[in-house]
């Protein structure tokens, strides 16, 4: 499996093409994704926004190999996910993708340090020199050096999410998917986490795709894609919270489902 990373903005870290996801069947069928094509360029921070039920989480799950598309294709780099069996998909997630979830990001029995290196430990690697340095730097960036041997239950919610961010970047993945990473945090902690994601992209040349419904969070991204009713409806470069909020209000005024 190629671990050659796409470092230039022109390269693609992940993309979906004509993605359709249908839940259920017959009368109760719901089209969560209805023909979405979107590219997440490497080295960029992309936010996916949309009202509840717009399909933004489904899009992220399918793009990250956590869920499968009903039709269409999802790629990580050049790898088409639908061609992979469960095992290969798992290995792909482990080696090439990082995750930050809204909550419950950490294994409670492992220490902070162990949680950070979990994907690499699962791969069986003992961490060569370069990854050791990288993680060392990462620990300083997220500011958890004095917490390395604590258990997640001894950390605040914000600290836990910062550990999750460190874990997500530890393996230097092609792309990090973050699903409402600030959803459970107060605004200050949320800000810290978002700053971390932003620094990772801009200073360390990583790629982040974040699902959020919070315009303030979306404003940290380089670009925002808007989803409604399972379709890609808009894109916005260099977003600000106000611009995003206005755009979101437009959905509401059109009577989009909430």
């Amino acid at each position, binding site marked *: 499996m190629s671990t050659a990373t796409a470092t230039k903005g022109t390269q693609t870290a992940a993309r979906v093409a004509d993605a359709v996801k249908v839940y259920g069947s017959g009368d109760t069928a719901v089209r969560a994704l209805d023909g979405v094509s979107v590219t997440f360029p490497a080295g960029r921070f992309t936010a996916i926004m949309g009202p509840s039920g717009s399909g933004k989480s489904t899009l992220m*799950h399918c793009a990250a190999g*956590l869920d499968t598309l009903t039709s269409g294709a999802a790629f990580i780099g050049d790898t088409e996910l639908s061609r992979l069996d469960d095992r290969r998909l*798992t290995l792909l997630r482990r080696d090439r993708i990082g995750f930050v*979830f809204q909550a*419950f990001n*950490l294994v*409670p029995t492992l220490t902070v340090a162990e949680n950070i290196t979990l994907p690499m*430990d*699962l791969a069986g690697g003992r961490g060569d020199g370069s990854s050791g340095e990288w993680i060392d730097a990462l620990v300083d960036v997220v500011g958890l050096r004095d917490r390395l041997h604590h258990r997640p239950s001894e950390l605040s919610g914000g600290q836990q999410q910062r550990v999750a961010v460190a874990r997500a970047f530890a393996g230097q993945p092609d792309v990090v998917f973050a699903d409402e990473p600030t959803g459970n945090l107060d605004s200050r902690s949320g800000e810290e986490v978002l700053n971390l994601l932003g620094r990772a992209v801009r200073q360390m040349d990583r790629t982040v795709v974040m699902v959020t419904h919070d315009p303030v969070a979306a404003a940290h991204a380089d670009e925002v894609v808007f989803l409604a009713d399972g379709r890609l409806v808009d894109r916005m470069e260099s977003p600000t919270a106000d611009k995003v909020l206005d755009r979101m209000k437009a959905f509401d005024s059109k009577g989009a489902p909430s």
Partner: protein
Amino acid sequence: MNASVRISASSLRAHKRRFAGTFLAVLLGVAFLAGTLVMGDTLRASFDTMFGNATSGTDAVVRSANTITTPGESQGVRQPVDTDLVTAIEKAPGVAAAVPDIQGAGQLIGADGDPIGGAGPPTLAGNWIDDTKLNAYQLAEGRAPSKSGEVVVNRGAAEQGDLKIGDTTTLRTPDPVKVTIVGLATFGGEDGMAQVTYTGMTQADAEKYLTAKPGEAASILVRAGPGTGERELVDALTPVLPKGVEAITGQELAAENTDMISGQFLTLFTTFLLVFSGVALLVATFSIHNTFAIVVAQRTRENALLRALGASRRQVTASTLVEASVVAVTASAAGLAGGIGIAAGLQALFPAIGFPFPEGDLVISGLSMLLPLAVGIVVCLGSALLPAVRAGRTAPLAALRETAVDQSGASRTRAVVGTGLAALAVAITLTGVIVSPSLWLAGSGAILALAAFVVLGPVASTTAVRVLGSPLDRLRGVTGGLARRNALRSPKRTAATASALMIGVAVVSLFTVFGASLKATMDQTVARSFAGDVAVSTPSFGAGGSGLSPKLAPAIAERPEVGTAVGLGRGVAEVDGKGRALTVTDPVALERTFDLGDVQGSMRDLGTDGIAITENEADKQGLKTGDTAQLAFTDGEKETFTVRAVYGQSELAGDYVITRDAWAPHRTQDSDTLVAVSFKDGVSAADGKAAVEKAAAAYGNPEVQTRDEYAQSAAGGIDMMLTLVYALLALAVLIALLGIANTLTLAVHERTRELGLLRAVGQTRSQLRAMVRWESVLVAAFGTVGGLALGGFLGWVLVKASDGASDSAFAFAVPPVQLAVVALVGLAAGALAGWRPARRAARLDVLRAIATE
């Protein structure tokens, strides 16, 4: 329907799987218990019918009133009656017929040259009684024996030995007698009385081969004329009988026989089984308690919500208890059905593997249904009581907190109480074993030790799992590390799960150690006191056929390779009013083939009025050489013997030795149980053994064993017993494993989100499965190691206590190979228990797992 019931009903419906393990545990325990009781009743009824059949035509039995029972024997030895009495009896009013009934042991040799039966049920021989009513056997084919050498055998025995009417074979009485089969008999329509073999000969032959002298019979069977009842007949007979002879009714005899079987064999058998069903139920208690404790913990939020909404403590407690009751009642009821199935299965199985169980319909009494039902319900409800009370105590506020996983366990109180208990247990046990040997003290100590282990479990589990699991990190990387930490998560839960297995493994190791010690003792005994080269013996288990011919030893002694051959027979007499087993032998030869230790006096000239006794008995009776002791024999004779020798070691030679000449006047059927042979100098073991075998061939081919073989065969019964014990304990271990599987399933359910996270960040399915399985193995390892330690300790206690309680020395042996096998089986079983939870965990859908609240 009130609220508690409604809540528990919906909870049961929603979480059927959670209770599957509990259900199975109760079901298995109850089934075992019910099966044991039903089988006990069925066997009792079958024996009842059997003995009823045997005496159905007999209205009264005249026999000697005295028996001598030696310690460890179920049936006393009864003096024979004089057959001359028949004439007097026939003259008594109401008597239609009276015949002597001669009973002895006679083992038939089958067509292939091997003895028939003899490994358990008796091999009987007697006089064929022509009166069809008085004879328990009925002629099915052929005719009755009419001249010497003709016999009737029961059809079952004939089939077993492939013998037909007209065949000639050998009957070991134990002197080999050439017999021709002229008839086949049935017993109550069956091919035999269970697996008992029977040979009926003419009265003259029976007197010649089965009694010490003509004119003696075991009893006289009497049939009443028309209009005379059994009781009347006995009343009419009593006046004509001499002193020391009694008459009882046929029914009384049947009842006596049944009681004897029930009292000795059946009671032992059912008690044995009940103990093991008790172990299984005890193990089940742990599993059930654990399941409910976990379920209640997992339901904290739900219960808290109920409390917040206004449910009283009582209602919350009740709803858990109602759940437990439903499981208890359905599982117990299913267990009853299972128990009946087990009994029916065993009834069909036992004859197939040669166990002597009579046939008959299953007897299902009220007690054998109600008792297991009650026990099942009590065990289940009792186990759920504490968790239910805890559920009731849930604070309404808990609804608002994160689901709390029970972290408690290693509390200081627990450690202190547990250590105290353990210290007390060891102190009491050691007192009972070393200071003042007492089985009672040792037993209480053992139970306390068990309690201490259970109390200390959660304290020990943290350290134990950490130590046992330490290789896992290295071997299995993060998967192993996660497994280890998962096992450490809730020390209380891990301990409770492991405790169930610990008890099972402890009992297994206890028996393994005890069995090995018995064998070692046997080896030691033979090595120490058997100075000969080979032994000729009959099977040590059961009635042992008809024994060895007393002519065998002299025949072997005639061989040029043989230096000494001494036969040991068995006699009984009362010494000081207590039944004692006598060793009847040639004392001079005995001294040459057995190491008797220090001998004071001389074994040389016991004569007909001398006796040799062990030091031990001599001390007990206060006898020394030159003293006299009165021996009362079964024929009512009392004789005074002089103690001519006191010897040190009793083990194989027995406690009392008299000469053949002294025993001859009082003996019944003459037989030896063991012939010990030493070769002349320079004779090789193989040559000597071949020579002995050649000599023995003419005496029905008894087995010739070297010293080692003899020691092993003497221990053969132990292996059989152990196999049975292992089979019975398999159930308890199975229940323990169900407990582990159940706990894991619940844990997997509890950790759904965490498992989803692990999968999301790259744990493969096989890594996840391995993680759950390793956790299972770790819990099992903890239980197994604890069980081995506890079982080893209890085994040592049992051996030492037995040593203290008995005269002969007990050796303590730890069988490393067997215990290693027990450990491996425990670990493998752990992996097996984790199989299904692991598969379920691996099947979790990643997304759903992450989304689970």
